[in-house]
């Protein structure tokens, strides 16, 4: 269905115009509500700007310097966020992968039921399950320690203890997210052509061998995708801490042991009303997200030809 050359030319121009018309709402939105605020945010980070005060004072990189060298609470929040991210991403992805492989087993009965059950926690509102876990982890009458007691184990103080509060939040997080990554891995496993496994089996490869030499390399794009998302979500920890540790207007306790970077940023901006300082912290978070995402893609992503 080729059109004459002259028509094709005017068609091209018409196409360009229509393409930009169709793109206009999105591009306008990104310009006004993504790019502009990002630039503003960077600009704020160079100023000392208490909210509500009209004049800002330019301080250059002073906010960044203070954050990195002179702010123990911020450093605590960084350390907590790192512990949370590592401590949730690794178990969540490992359990999710094992579950996905189990659910992909050809002789498994009730596959649909298992998938629904494991995915269900992810559908529940984070605020709601946050309060459920807050109660479940109650040291004296909470159900978790009640179950421990059945086995004669004295459970820890969980959210009341400085040592166990963050692991408590991590537990909730792992419980809620595993099903989501399981479904992602299941989708990835479906794309591996069965011929590879059959070939490996004919060659006499053991199940262990096939997992390391066939399944894992072929699942690599999915694994990279899942781990990048999991790390980004981990670094943005906020709602769970807000819900599970809030007590008479103080969050991130006991004694800052669950204070996350985003919680610290929100409180700096909207409680201490120090917009400039908060913006600098947000930019450090952005750099961490960007850096870690690229790093994961570099380390994990091995092109695999087949």
């Amino acid at each position, binding site marked *: 269905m080729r059109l004459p050359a002259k028509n094709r030319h005017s068609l091209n121009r018409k196409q360009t115009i229509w393409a930009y018309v169709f793109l206009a709402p999105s591009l306008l939105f990104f310009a006004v509500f993504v790019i502009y605020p990002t630039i503003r945010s960077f600009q704020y980070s160079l100023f000392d700007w208490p909210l509500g005060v009209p004049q800002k004072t330019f301080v250059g990189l002073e906010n960044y310097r203070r954050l990195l060298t002179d702010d123990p609470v911020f450093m605590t929040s960084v350390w907590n966020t790192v512990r949370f991210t590592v401590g949730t991403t690794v178990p969540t992805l490992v359990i999710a992968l094992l579950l996905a492989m189990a659910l*992909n087993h050809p*002789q498994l009965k009730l596959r649909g039921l298992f998938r629904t*059950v494991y995915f269900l926690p992810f559908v529940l509102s984070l605020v709601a399950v946050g*309060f459920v*876990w807050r109660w479940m982890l109650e040291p004296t009458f909470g159900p978790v320690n009640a179950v421990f007691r059945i086995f004669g184990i004295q459970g820890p103080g969980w959210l009341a203890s400085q040592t166990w509060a963050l692991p408590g939040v991590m537990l909730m997080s792992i419980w809620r997210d595993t099903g989501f990554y399981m479904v992602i891995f299941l989708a990835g496993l479906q794309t591996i052509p069965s011929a590879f496994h059959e070939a490996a089996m004919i060659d006499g490869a053991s199940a262990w061998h096939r997992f390391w030499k066939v399944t894992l390399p072929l699942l690599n794009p999915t694994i990279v995708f899942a781990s990048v998302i999991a790390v980004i979500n981990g670094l943005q920890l906020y709602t769970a801490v807000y819900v599970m540790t809030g007590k008479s207007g103080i969050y991130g306790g006991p004694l800052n042991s669950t204070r996350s970077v985003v919680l610290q940023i*929100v409180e700096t901006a909207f409680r201490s009303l120090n917009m400039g300082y908060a913006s600098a912290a*947000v930019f450090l978070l952005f750099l961490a*997200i960007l850096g870690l995402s690229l790093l994961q893609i570099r380390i994990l992503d091995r092109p695999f030809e087949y």
Partner: protein
Amino acid sequence: MDSARRITQPSAAGTYAPPSRNARRIAIIGLHCLLIAGGILALFPVFVMVTASFKSLAEVLRVPPAWLPEQLTLKNFREVFRQQPLYARYFLNSAIVALITVGSVLFTSSLAGYALSKFRFRGRNAIFIFILGTMMIPFEIRMVPLYVMVSDWHLTDTYLGLALPGLVGAFGIFLMRQFIASIPGDLMDAARIDGASEPGIFFRIVLPLSKPALSALAIFTLVGSWEAFLWPLLIVNSETMRTLPIGLALFAGRYLQRLDLQMAASVLTVLPMVIVFFVLQRRFVEGLTLTGLKG
């Protein structure tokens, strides 16, 4: 359509080959036992939440715990609405914000995805990479300037203000572009030769053919909007404009000792998405399949 069924069907991928038949049978039984144990762990918090919502406070606090309620009573649910009559309003607020967000995301994403996949023009790749790049910008970066903008425009405590940061999404554009690219371009060219207008082609050909991707995107956007917490927390001041998660957080925070009411309010909050999940379960999984592969 069939991708969901594919998951439920046995495939040869991941097949184990233990030596003998007996050993294989034992392995299969063990696998089922492990999965059942894991399933109990996954459902335990849900069980605890639902049963507690029907219990009296004294029963909730009993040590050792009474796992099942002595009698089923809806008292707690009535009490939630009595203590916070606005709770019904929070459902409405969340639903309105979700409706605005889903409508806007579906419309803008499919338009942009169509332009980026079926039109040839200068700057196409640059624009696509730019849009993908915005995915790396975390919401917290935009938070303070957006807050200033929304305050300046007097949009705090409005539905538009609540929906604003999520009206367009790079992820949606990416998803729609990938999907529309798989629709044969001949269909559109034929319509063009028949004299159809460009908007006509979009509405009458592209949109109807994109239904699977649109419904997956609608579900993700709906869940995302329903879950939004930080932004509504910042810009809602009036009690009547709270969305459901904010309403629940402030309600439960006020009644920290009333676990019976907390759990009833939590059940009410999770119910809408649980219903959506069970009705649209296949589309959920299909949607994840659609996105997970191309990530």
